[in-house]
């Protein structure tokens, strides 16, 4: 800045700079969609709790050799849990992108990572075949979800009144196709988990996921899908997610580990998302 500029900046000029700045800050804040951001935080927190608690339930009380054993171990079923969770992280990126104006939480990631430390400790305890109270699994799974819920609650408090419901419109063609494919993918994952050769099939499923991730920046990618989805599709995804996790636990932890249970369970897993794709309505 030149000395002339400095000399020219009197109190009135400084006030003229300050006022529009304050107005811009207020206008930016008013465009934040706190309701959507709060829902997103609650969704991530809930899915993280379900994923971590189910993971510990699957690998808990497993002999150390099971970590590298075949499909009968809880460890291989953890692939079934990992797939929908990774898909969710991509879908959420799409919701963020659609929001256009986001609240960033610089410390939240750090706090969540620290809260994941007990999960790592319990994971090591499991590998060492140490015994502990089963309820600790739930506490450990709740630890990283808690700061996310807290953040979601803070965002929800800032949300304005709920807007009137917009009449539904049809999902675009790529979104409908990808929604249906995602349902079939989850269903296939559940079905194959019941077979003895799932360890190999799991590799194929993970490769399919890598292919999905490679499409991330295109309109066929998961972030684009997440940005197009509305309540019916998200409800379908949540239902498929819960059913897939439940199926993995049933197959890993009960005597119902039969191909028939896997096939029927896989169909149930696929139905919510396939129905959402066929109906294709969005608000």
């Amino acid at each position, binding site marked *: 800045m030149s000395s002339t500029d400095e000399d020219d*900046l009197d109190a009135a000029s400084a006030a003229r700079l300050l006022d529009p700045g304050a107005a811009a800050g207020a206008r930016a804040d008013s465009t934040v969609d706190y309701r959507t951001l709060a829902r997103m935080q609650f969704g991530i927190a809930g899915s993280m709790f379900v994923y971590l608690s189910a993971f510990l339930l699957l690998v808990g009380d497993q002999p150390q050799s099971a970590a590298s054993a075949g499909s009968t171990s809880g460890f291989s079923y953890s692939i079934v849990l990992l797939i929908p969770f990774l898909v969710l992280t991509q879908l959420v990126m799409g919701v963020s992108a659609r929001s256009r104006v986001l*609240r960033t939480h*610089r410390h939240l990631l750090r706090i969540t990572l620290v809260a994941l430390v007990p999960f790592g400790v319990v994971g090591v305890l499991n590998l060492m075949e140490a015994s502990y109270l089963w309820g600790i699994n739930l506490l450990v799974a709740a630890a990283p979800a808690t700061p996310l819920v807290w953040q979601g609650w803070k965002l929800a408090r800032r949300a304005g009144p709920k807007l009137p419901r917009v009449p539904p419109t049809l999902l675009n063609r790529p979104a409908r196709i990808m929604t249906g494919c995602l349902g079939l993918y989850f269903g296939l994952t559940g079905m194959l988990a019941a077979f003895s050769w799932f360890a190999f099939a799991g590799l194929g499923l993970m490769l399919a996921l890598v292919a999905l991730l490679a499409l991330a920046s295109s309109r066929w990618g998961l972030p684009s899908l997440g940005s197009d989805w509305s309540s019916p599709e998200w409800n379908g995804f949540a239902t498929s997610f819960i059913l897939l996790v439940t199926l993995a636990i049933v197959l890993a932890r009960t005597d119902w580990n039969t191909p028939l249970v896997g096939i029927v369970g896989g169909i149930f897993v696929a139905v919510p998302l396939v129905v959402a794709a066929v109906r294709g309505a969005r608000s």
Partner: protein
Amino acid sequence: MTDGSQRHPRHELDPALLTPLRFSLMAALGTDIEIDFATLRHLLETDDSALSKAIATLSTAGYVRVRKGYVANRPRTWLRATTAGQAAMRIHVAALRAIVGE
């Protein structure tokens, strides 16, 4: 010239923040908001060219971080204030308020 403790607040003003557009842009980004280019242009009631120039200046100063991505195959640019940008803004606003006499 006075000693350091009695310097006139104008010496604390940041040249990169002295235009109304650049100042408003930093004010809009605040401490924890990420905004896409089109929304920012609408909020600041400016045009693509002026906003691009303002972003280039602030980016060169290390005050804003630009993130580019795609939504449904369309490119989109998001902006957020860096830690250095937030600190510079705090000092700049304090200097302006001191000049105003608040």
